[in-house]
C-alpha cells in the first residue's frame, strides 16, 4: 500500500489514533534512548574541555535541548490548537493537552539547568538575561494553559478555550522575546552563552544529537499521554469498552 492510498484523515478519529499511537510510541522511545546514549557519549567522552568554562560547559548538553524543545513544543501545541479551532476536530485539543505538561517540564528544566550553569560562571543563581527571562515567561504561559484546562469542567470547552489561549500566546511569544531582549541589552547583564568564536564540532554535534533525543522523547511521551486522554474522554463509547477487555 503506497503513501497515497492511506486515508490520513481516518487518524483524526480517536479510536484509530489510539491504536496508531499505541504502535508508534515504542519506536520513538527506542530512538530517544539510543540518541541519548550517543549524545551523552559524545558529550562526555568526545567533546573536549572548554577554554573558558572548563568542564562546566557540559551543561549545554541538557540546557540547550530543554530550551529548544520547550519552545518547539509550544509552537506545535499552538499549531494543534489552531487546527482544532479551524476544523473543530476533537483529537487536536487532546494532542495540545497531551503536549503541554512535557513542554512545561522542559521549560522548568531549562530554567534549572540555566541557573546551575549561571552560578559557577557568573556567581549568581539567577541571571536576568534575555533568554532565561523569556524562558521564564514561556513557563508561565504553559502554567496558564494547564491551569485553564484544569479549571473548566467540560473538556470540549476547555480545549477550545485553551486553544485560543495557546494561539494568543504563540502570537505574543515573538513580541515578548523582542521586548525582553531589548530590555536586557539596556540593562547590560551577564549572558548564559558559550563565548568564543565558534563551538568545537564535537560540542555542536553532541548538542544536536541531544536535541533530537529530547524531541523523540517528547513525541513518545505525548503519544502515551494522548492515549490516556483519549480513554478518559471517550469512556462512554463502545470501542473503549472493548479496548479494556
Amino acid at each position, binding site marked *: 500500500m503506497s503513501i497515497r492510498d492511506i486515508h490520513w484523515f481516518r487518524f483524526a478519529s480517536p479510536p484509530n489514533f489510539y491504536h496508531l499511537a499505541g504502535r508508534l510510541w515504542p519506536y520513538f522511545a527506542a530512538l530517544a534512548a539510543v540518541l541519548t546514549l550517543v549524545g551523552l557519549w559524545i558529550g*562526555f*567522552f568526545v567533546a*573536549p*574541555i572548554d577554554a573558558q568554562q*572548563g*568542564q*562546566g560547559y*557540559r*551543561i549545554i548538553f*541538557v*540546557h540547550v535541548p*530543554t530550551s529548544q524543545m520547550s519552545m518547539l513544543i509550544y509552537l506545535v501545541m499552538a499549531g494543534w490548537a489552531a487546527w482544532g479551532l479551524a476544523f473543530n476536530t476533537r483529537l487536536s485539543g487532546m494532542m495540545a493537552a497531551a503536549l503541554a*505538561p*512535557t513542554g512545561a*517540564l522542559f521549560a*522548568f*528544566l531549562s530554567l*534549572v*539547568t540555566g541557573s*546551575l*550553569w549561571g*552560578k*559557577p560562571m557568573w556567581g549568581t543563581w539567577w541571571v536576568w538575561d534575555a533568554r532565561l527571562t523569556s524562558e521564564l515567561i514561556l513557563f508561565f504561559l504553559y502554567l496558564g494553559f494547564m491551569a485553564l484546562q484544569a479549571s473548566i469542567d467540560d473538556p470540549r470547552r476547555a480545549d477550545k478555550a485553551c486553544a485560543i489561549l495557546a494561539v494568543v500566546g504563540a502570537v505574543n511569544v515573538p513580541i515578548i522575546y523582542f521586548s525582553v531582549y531589548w530590555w536586557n541589552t539596556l540593562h547590560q547583564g551577564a549572558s548564559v552563552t558559550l563565548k568564543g568564536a565558534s563551538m568545537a564540532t564535537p560540542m555542536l554535534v553532541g548538542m544536536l544529537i541531544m536535541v533530537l533525543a529530547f524531541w523523540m*522523547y517528547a513525541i513518545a*511521551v505525548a503519544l*502515551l*499521554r494522548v*492515549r*490516556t486522554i483519549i*480513554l*478518559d474522554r471517550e*469512556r462512554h463509547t463502545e470501542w*473503549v*469498552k472493548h479496548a*479494556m477487555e
Partner: protein
Amino acid sequence: MQWNSLSDFLNMGGYALYVWGSFGATAVCMAAELWLLRVRRLAVEAQLRNDRGISSQNRQEAA
C-alpha cells in the same frame, strides 16, 4: 578518552555539583513524568473497569 580516572570524571573539573546537578535534575524530572503518566493511566483504567462493573450490574438488575 580525556578522563584520567573515574574520580576525575565524577569531579568534572570542580563543576560536579552543577553538571551532575543538571543531568540529575533532568533524569529525575523525566522519570517523574513517566511515573506520573503511568499513575494517570492506571487511574483511568481502574475507573473504566469500575464503570463497566456498574453498568453490567445495572443490566443484571434490570433483567
